[in-house]
């Protein structure tokens, strides 16, 4: 008998029989001739979309195609921060839905995503930021998102290693979301993949989409490196490469792809048990369960698909963090990497129908997509199944033509 469900009992049983009963988390699959729904992109958002299509709408004849390996794009490259303290109502709704889903995701997927609601603190270091974050806290209280603006003393209490006095920018307060936090990013993709596979969906890795064909304005066939696959509906959920796929389908997106970098230090003893973001000086930091300080900064200024960025951005980020946390000045950095983020004009995502019937896009999450994975998948699945979703309604791509921006440049400006 093999072990499918993870539990303390299963662990004990497998321990007694040399761990021979564990199965692959998801099945290896090769493409069938046709699927009801094809999702391109086996990152968090794509897999979550497939999962909620199956779970909420019973659509299980689904394939998820991935050019590289599962969760190898931005899902495995972000700094794992989860929060929902945005300003505009549509953003608060989808990010809070997402954060709420994270709370119970491990139980739901029977896969430990290590959600850690340790609290997210966004430092206010100028008078403008103090005013901006107080406004956000008020907006959040109306939206039902629990945040508060806290004093410098409380900041110091929560983060003893912080330097409040500057030298460049003193800490004047912070926006605090106690139920924000982090999760294990790979596990989120793996957990959704396992659940999708259990529902009979095919997850096909190393399968690059080379063309998208439509007839009479309706999508019909996806051409891939593993042959042609027919589909009823097609979801493009590929973050930085959304523009490239849109071009293959014959339309354009209001998106530019930039490199965003992150880095981690050598592991040290526990010194900071919350996430701290410092938007004015461009840097944010948390400590992983392994003890590494996980650090992120700003994007490059030019279009880039290479998953590596410019050194001076790292320098700027590290300089800012050393000012804010003087004790990290001697830390050695272990790894540095980049991801390609898809930026929209108003810094809000696109979850939308497209000019081609049957093709839907979910992109534009820019520098902050990880936190949104469950909510984004939930909304995208509803949009693809029913043609409309209250959560995604405001995020249609026609908003740029109509001037209905969801301006989150303050909330999303740098840090995620």
């Amino acid at each position, binding site marked *: 008998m093999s072990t499918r469900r993870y539990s303390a009992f299963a662990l004990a049983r497998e321990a007694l029989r040399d761990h021979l009963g564990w199965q692959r988390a998801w099945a290896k699959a090769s493409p069938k001739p046709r699927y009801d729904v094809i999702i391109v992109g086996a990152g968090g958002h794509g897999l979550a979309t497939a999962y909620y299509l199956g779970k909420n709408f019973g659509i299980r004849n689904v394939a998820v195609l991935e050019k590289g390996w599962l969760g190898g794009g931005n899902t495995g490259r972000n700094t794992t921060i989860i929060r929902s303290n945005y300003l505009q109502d549509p953003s608060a709704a989808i990010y809070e839905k997402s954060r709420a889903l994270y709370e119970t995701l491990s139980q739901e997927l029977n896969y430990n995503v290590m959600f850690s609601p340790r609290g997210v603190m966004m430092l206010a270091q100028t008078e403008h930021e103090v005013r901006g974050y107080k406004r956000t806290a008020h907006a959040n209280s109306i939206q039902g998102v629990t945040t508060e603006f806290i004093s410098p003393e409380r900041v110091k209490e929560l983060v003893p290693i912080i330097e409040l006095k500057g030298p460049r920018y003193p800490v004047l307060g912070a926006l605090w979301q106690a139920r924000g936090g982090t999760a294990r990013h790979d596990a989120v993709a793996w957990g959704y993949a396992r659940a999708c596979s259990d529902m009979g969906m095919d997850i096909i890795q190393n399968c690059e989409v080379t063309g998208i064909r439509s007839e009479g304005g309706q999508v019909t066939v996806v051409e891939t490196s593993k042959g042609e696959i027919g589909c009823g509906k097609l979801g493009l959920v590929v973050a930085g*490469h959304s*523009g*490239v796929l849109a*071009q293959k389908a*014959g339309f*354009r*997106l*209001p*998106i*530019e*792809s930039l490199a965003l970098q992150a880095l981690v230090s050598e592991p040290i003893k526990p010194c900071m048990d919350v996430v701290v973001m410092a938007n004015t000086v461009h840097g944010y930091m948390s400590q992983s369960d392994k003890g590494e300080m996980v650090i992120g900064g700003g994007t490059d*200024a*030019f*279009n*880039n*698909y*290479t998953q590596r960025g*410019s*050194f*001076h951005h790292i320098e700027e980020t590290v300089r800012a963090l050393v000012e804010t946390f003087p004790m990290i000045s001697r830390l050695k950095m272990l790894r540095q990497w980049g991801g390609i983020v898809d930026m929209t*004009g108003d810094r809000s995502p696109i979850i939308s129908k497209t000019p081609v019937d049957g093709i839907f896009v979910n992109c534009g999450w820019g520098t902050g997509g990880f936190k949104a994975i469950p909510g984004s998948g939930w909304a995208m699945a509803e949009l693809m199944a029913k043609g409309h979703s209250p959560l995604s309604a405001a995020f249609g791509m026609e908003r*740029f*033509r*109509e001037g209905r921006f969801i301006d989150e440049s303050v909330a999303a400006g740098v840090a995620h």
Partner: protein
Amino acid sequence: MLILTCPCCGVTADETELAGGGEAHVRRAGPGASESEVEDYLFMRENPRGPHFERWRHAYGCGKWFLAARDTATLEVFGTYPAQTTEPPEHIRAAITERHPGWRWRDFS
């Protein structure tokens, strides 16, 4: 580190001396333009994976605007040229075609 040569003052500068200005050769929608033309002008971008034309300003140098042709997939620079042009000049196109045979200007606009 991206390094570009300013065609106005001739200085070769790295990106810390320059300021990016987004996609080049975007045509401004004039009076009487439709909503979708204005949308194209303001928001829609080529965002190609490959040869790309950009506006740059020599911000901490001569201060002038210029244009650059770059490959976003390899970070290779094909050359820079004056901002007072409405489409990429011949020598820039030739440099791109050498790397990408069959390449065409604005493949899908």
